[in-house]
């Protein structure tokens, strides 16, 4: 069975409202990607060298990356020759198929935060500057508050001007407790205090915000590792979850980002933000391909409930298929 059919059938069984958020949130990304695929298939009767080159262009312009793109195209060419497929539409399905399988075969994924049985579950949130860490944290807090969890925020970004204030405003809007340190105090000490308070106050989920840091800055990466270590002193095994926030507009540097952060803390997933723009976020496929890190949540808009569980079917469906 071709993947298009498979996806459509699978989607049909899913919650309609959630799928709609994907479809509308990704409408701008899709306009480019899906339409280009579609137009391309209409322009050709049979595929040829030229056709594959244009496929390559579409994938690269979605930030899937050079090496993964070349591999996907190569595999598609091989398969089309072996099975004698020449119909452009079928070739396009094969491409989506490869993207899907390549991602899915790296293992099962549970999106929701995995809570520990006893005591607070700690989520550490990290990323480079300006990707939307603080906003994503607010959205995650909102999500789990709505699920009846006791959530606490911890403002361990003591570096950027206004960062503590930004998170504090969110805590007021969400009516959840927050732990802040003094300006320019050691972020690890704030995180430690957060872990302590979370235990004392019987919190279910402690979300630790950290300053944006570029992955090539050794000192700052060491600082992040220290934050993680210090939390585990107060709560063994914590942080239980560590998310890397990646901006959908990110290009090939995203792979380096994921790699360096993975070397520094035990990443358990990626949150991809700003998917409501025109970017396709193809870098998540490259990251999954090279490092195996799965996307757990996807930011599809500015509203509080525009953070969804990442669902590969829906992502590809939203990107390639839905009209």
């Amino acid at each position, binding site marked *: 069975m071709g993947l298009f059919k498979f996806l459509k059938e699978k989607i049909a069984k899913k919650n309609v409202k959630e799928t709609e958020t994907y479809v509308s949130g990704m409408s*701008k990304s899709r306009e480019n990607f899906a339409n280009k695929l579609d137009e391309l298939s209409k322009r050709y009767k049979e595929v040829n060298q030229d056709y594959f080159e244009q496929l390559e*262009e579409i994938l*690269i*312009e*979605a*930030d899937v*990356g*050079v*090496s993964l793109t070349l591999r996907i195209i190569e595999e598609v060419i091989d398969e089309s020759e072996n099975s004698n497929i020449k119909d452009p539409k079928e070739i396009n399905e094969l491409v989506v198929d490869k993207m899907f399988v390549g991602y899915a075969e790296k293992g099962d994924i549970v999106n929701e935060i995995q809570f520990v049985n006893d005591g607070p579950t700690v989520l550490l949130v990290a990323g*480079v*500057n*300006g*990707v*939307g860490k603080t906003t994503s944290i607010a959205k995650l807090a909102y999500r789990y508050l709505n699920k009846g969890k006791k959530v606490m925020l911890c403002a361990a970004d003591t*570096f*950027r*001007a*206004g*960062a503590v*204030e*930004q998170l*504090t*405003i*969110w805590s007021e809007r969400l009516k959840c407790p927050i732990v802040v340190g003094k300006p320019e105090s050691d972020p690890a000490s704030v995180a430690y205090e957060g872990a302590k308070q979370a235990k004392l106050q019987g919190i279910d989920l402690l979300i630790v915000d950290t300053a944006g840091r*570029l*992955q*090539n*800055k*050794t*000192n700052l990466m060491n600082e992040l590792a220290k934050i993680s270590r210090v939390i585990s002193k107060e709560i063994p095994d914590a942080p239980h979850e560590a998310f890397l926030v990646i*901006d959908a*507009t*990110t*290009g*090939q*540097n*995203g*792979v*380096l*980002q994921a790699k360096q952060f993975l070397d520094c803390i035990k990443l358990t997933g990626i949150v991809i933000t*700003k998917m*409501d*723009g*025109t*970017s*396709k976020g*193809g*870098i998540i496929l490259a990251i999954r391909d*090279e490092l195996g890190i799965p996307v757990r949540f996807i930011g599809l808009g500015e509203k509080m409930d525009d953070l969804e569980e990442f669902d590969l079917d829906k992502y590809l469906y939203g990107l390639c298929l839905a009209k």
Partner: protein
Amino acid sequence: MAFESLSEKFQRILKKVRGQSRLTEANMDEMLKEVRIALLEADVNFKVVKEFVEQVKQKAIGAEVYTKLNPSQMVVKIVHDELTELLGSGESEIKYEKNKPTIIMLVGLQGTGKTTSAGKLANLMKKKLGKKVLLAAGDVYRPAAIDQLEQIGKQIDVPVFSMGTNVSPVEIAKKAKDKAYNDHFDVLILDTAGRLQIDELLMKELQDINASINPNEILLLVDAMSGQDAINVAKAFNSSLNLTGIIMSKLDGDARGGSALSIKHLTGVPIKFAGTGEKLTDLDVFHPDRMADRILGMGDVVTLVEKVQEEIDEKEARKDAELMMQGKFTLDDLLKQMKRIQKLGSLGGLLKLIPGMPKITDEQKEAGEKEMKNFEAIINSMTPYERENPEVLKNSRKVRIAKGSGKTNADINRLLKRYESMLEMMKKMQQYKKTGRMPPGMGFPPGSMM
């Protein structure tokens, strides 16, 4: 490895074309293929890559290979020159008004660094040009954005005009302009909220601000890490606002920043500034040649050299150089020099700028930094006489110094060896000064203290 540098790739191809004196389609094909991949990996837009490579090919075919270069170097040179030219064309300076405030407006997607860059620009204009600058907080949407700008203003001692979050940004812009005129500011820098280029309502808001204050400059912030879509963003902002320039932010990361090329190539909007760090002094005028190196993945030697120049007091450095030339270079001088180098930031950061150095591991970098600290401890345990005359350091003195500094005899010997190789280098420099010829093997030997 996906991110093998272009020069490394060329090394491989080079073997096949060695000795050919003219560039032909045949001997260039493979190299251009690598150039193409290098550009794509740097996030240069697909179409731009295609056009650019074709352009280079036309220029290069038939070009004679300079006797000193091999064909692959020749191709790199042509590619590099073309890139530099493309990136650098157009007006890159800010034109200041003489008798009224110059108004600068910053726009861009969320998280590209507008607020930080507003502070950096203000600081640059105040410190380097002696301008009287007013910052205006026009981001009423992101929580605490105004707080952020106010804190930045305090840090650099520049006033910030704000009206809270319940006023329309258009109104804030108008009032800020009035204030800039009334209080005779030289420059007004308006920070605006981040927005998606497809958000019609918010794009209209920018057009309204534009129409009501008529800024001299509208600068778009572009994140160096941005991917293929950057060009769509820039095109949309340009068509609704007629941008006058680009600020590339986060160039202190290791992203290659190919979007700079795409945007310049497809919109013609010049790149004016580059954000190079988290400190409020970390904003540079844009250097097209360095950006070309970076996009091609060739390391950034010039930045390294300039960074060193900036941080090292020029007088001190000249004194060092003179002492060196005279052969009067003591351990004290060596320590001073080391400290200045340390001031440049971690050695790791510097090494990243040097081409051909990516193979150095984190462990090696840390070892290098640790060694610097060891040397400092050892030199601090010496008497002034010993520092000036290291040749007197015989066994008993070494034992004392080792005890005093908590280091071993071997550490001390390593330091002395370094010192000697420094002296050796100086002798070669003197020779160079006399003959005007660079001795072979000059430059910083790997692992040397630079």
